[in-house]
């Protein structure tokens, strides 16, 4: 009962994805990988977690299978299910099962968003058993040594319903991600988009302004991802203030006064 369509080679990353290290996260991830420990990436959205995973997959030469978790995601979405094909039922592996069989890196993005039953299936994979029980077909697959489980989690959304359970988090090596400091963030924006240093500097300043507003009107400040978006627009000759509004402010809030205030801030900078 093997999946027919899965081609691991499609999940290899050929070219080095650009990743600007912030601390010693690369070394730690490599160590965890060698010791077959699962990894938890903590941090706000858009601060480079996905990019980091791509970079690590390239570095370790493993296929990377990413699952963006959402509140409809069930255990069978991860493990697999029966499908009907040509009048017969066929079992099809889910992304997690595929990763386990083929020694891929499986990255579950925003894992708390998923339904609670999904965390149960990752538990036996995340301790030293390293197995995936597939109840539906009565199989227990053992992970190959190359397999690696990584999950991400944003502790910023503090809500009782969306917290990672102790029983889950205590299985993982945790890497904390945060927005890079001003100099590094400027460099990331420039490398990603090719805009000039002066504009990149001001964009980073704007980001800091919005991050200072966290808690006094904004739930989150601008992420590196949003800065990259704004920079790309600017690169296409959109005026910087417009780029900030459309790519950053509008993404952060719908509040009319707040939007005006953010506009006043960006127009002060450019």
């Amino acid at each position, binding site marked *: 009962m093997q999946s027919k369509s899965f081609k691991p080679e499609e999940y290899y990353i050929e070219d080095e994805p650009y990743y600007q290290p912030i601390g010693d996260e690369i070394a730690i991830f490599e160590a965890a990988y060698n010791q077959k420990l699962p990894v938890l990436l903590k941090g706000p959205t858009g601060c480079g977690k996905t990019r980091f995973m791509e970079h690590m997959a390239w570095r370790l030469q493993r296929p990377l299978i990413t699952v963006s978790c959402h509140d409809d995601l069930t255990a069978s*979405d991860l493990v697999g299910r029966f499908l009907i094909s040509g009048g017969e039922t066929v079992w099809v592996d889910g992304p997690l099962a595929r990763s386990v069989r083929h020694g891929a890196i499986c990255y579950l993005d925003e894992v708390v968003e998923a339904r609670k039953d999904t965390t149960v299936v990752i538990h036996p994979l995340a301790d030293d058993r390293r197995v995936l029980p597939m109840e539906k077909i009565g199989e227990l697959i053992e992970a190959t040594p190359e397999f690696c489980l990584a999950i991400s989690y944003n502790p910023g959304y503090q809500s009782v319903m969306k917290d990672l359970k102790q029983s889950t988090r205590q299985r993982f090596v945790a890497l904390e991600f945060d927005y890079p400091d001003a100099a590094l963030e400027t460099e990331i924006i420039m490398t990603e988009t090719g805009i000039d240093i002066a504009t990149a500097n001001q964009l980073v300043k704007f980001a800091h*302004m919005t991050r200072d507003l966290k808690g006094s009107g904004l739930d989150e400040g601008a992420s590196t991802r949003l800065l990259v978006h704004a920079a790309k627009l600017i690169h296409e000759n959109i005026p910087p203030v417009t780029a900030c509004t459309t790519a950053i402010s509008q993404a952060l809030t719908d509040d009319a006064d707040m939007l005006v205030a953010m506009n006043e801030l960006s*127009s002060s*900078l450019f």
Partner: protein
Amino acid sequence: MKSKPLTLQEIVDFLDICFEVEFTFIKSELAAELIVQQTRSDQDFILNLTRRVAATNKELAFQFAMNAIRALDHMDQHMVEAWAMSATDNYDSKGLNPAMSVIRDLDNYVDTAHIRTCGAVLAEEIPVLLPFAHGLSGRKLKIAETEGKHSYTDTETIFLPAFTSLFEESKDNFLIYKASIAFLWAQIHFGTFRIPFEKLLDCDAPDKQLNKFFTLESIRLETCIKRELPGLYRDMQTLKQKEEKQLQRQRIEIENWRYIKHKLTADNAGIHDTLHCLALVDEIQCPPPYCYQGILKPDLAGAVMQKRIEKEKAYFRIALKELASENMKNNATDNTEAEFEMDSGAKFDIRNKADRQNDTQQVNSGVIELEFEGDLVALPDHVKELMTSIIVDFGEIPPEYLYAAGPGEYDLKKYEEELRNPNDVWQGTYHEEGAELYNEWNFKRQHYHKNWCVLRELELEPEYDDFVENTLHKHKALLKNLRHSFEILRGEDKLLKKQVHGDNIDIDALVEAYGDVKSGMEMTDRLFTKMHKVERNVAVIFMVDMSGSTRGWINQAERESLILLAEVIQILGDRFAIYGFSGMTRQRCELYKIKTFDEEYNDEIRARISNIQPQNYTRMGVFIRHMTRLFNNIEASTKLLVTLSDGKPDDYDTYRGEYGVEDTRQALYEAHCDGIHSYCITIDEKARDYLPHMYGAANYSVIDDVAQLPLKVSDIYRRLTT
């Protein structure tokens, strides 16, 4: 068709009623003679506003009526209204005389240079200006209104005039506010207040000296702004040009100008360069400041700074002490439970970042990190905030701050008590600590009293008696009933059939599909079953009247209902909170915490419910506004506010009759705008006529027996949450 202007007599009659002339002896004719010459629309406008001001004070209204026409010559109606309301605000906060001078000294408030400007009104711009100020780095600044025309700062609050109306267009007048905030922020941020002003002003002509200093310092500050906020700097230049053109003012003439300019516009120019230049010039023609530059109040700033510096040093060194002992605990290898008391000040160090290329950036607290015994220390947010504020004051963390406080070195109570001083609360500066301020709606004035009510959250001690047990026993049958209806409410997980995706195969669908295929039809892809989980996301607050009038059976009924409701809400798993409210006058609005959202419902909470006792009076609006604030801090798709009360809002002072009802109605409307469903349950024999007016016909009920109450609530639940 234009309506005919009112006659003199008609106006006099109207004003006589407004001013209650039989008692006040105000001469309505004087005002009427002015008003009669106006167009009908201006007449209506003035008379209507006069009546609204008269709801606050008759004298003030008369003064307004006398000056309204002059005001209308210079400002549009919107501004005149704002001006009148600013007078009533001043009446609230300072009394009749200051309010009268707002009206009389019209010229102080607005620039009467030209005709009917579209000014900017501070109160209206605050929702934009405050986040703007918070977005500028450094200490979180507050914004308040100044009585005068010039803006200034005390290093924590930025004081801005109630109106700006120098320019014809509101956009430019708004820009004055924005530029003022940035300019005053620059003073705080780039070290204007880091010099000893007493020494500077210890001379023959301190005023002249201060002016000279201000003029030179402004050159330096604007250079900083040009570097940090180039866009705003451009706007400032535009404002300056417009102002020069309009007021035909002169630019500054200074000897040694070239040199001074070179010095003060250098990238790393500091406050000492300003002082250095000050010594170079003898006398300058100091023009008045530009419209957004405001004035310096060194005494005020000095006093505020001194207090803050002392306080922050204490807080910071105590925070270091905590960090140090935590660090030692973590590093202790043996597992002894020994307390790590620090006897002498442990020393922290500043980690020097190798790449500090940005030396022009004088303040960048994000760059400074602390080390303890060679290890980097993770700083909690409140310590980071303290550091930022300290760096704003000194440009660095002074070395003596880096020693952790010794045991008993500081008595923090001293600072806490200072914060709780009710007078500070009235200045509106210490919202966060101890008390919160809320507006109150005055329907006659058609305007809010600002920061009118002082609300404090108080603890309610648990009372462990047999009340809970008795209640559960007494209402056993009712409880069973309720449980049942709440269980129905909860809803069951449903198995959805014929889904495109799902957990299991839908055999029925499959058989059907198989049949279809055999007979040559297209096969459906809806072949799965899926479990649909009902996830509730409801938050509810019960707000319980604890006023004196609930004494007796009503109080008992409230408590019994709460016990029953809490019991069955658990079934649904909804988040809920319980607060009791009472108080006496607007200065003492007391909210008793019975159960917060974060607390588990347990025996202690039950015992607190048992201890709900009648207190004083009922003011309603302020509590509803507070609940709205609490709701806005949590995330829930349905927010429900249920008030249990015995009747009308009523307080010791003027919160009676229509006034209280209208304020409550307004507060409920505000809650509605924030997406909160309000429902009122009144325990009273007689249905009252004002309830539909406040809550809307569908959102209240009157009951006369406890037994009805939980059923009513489950009804509301059914309507609102399913």
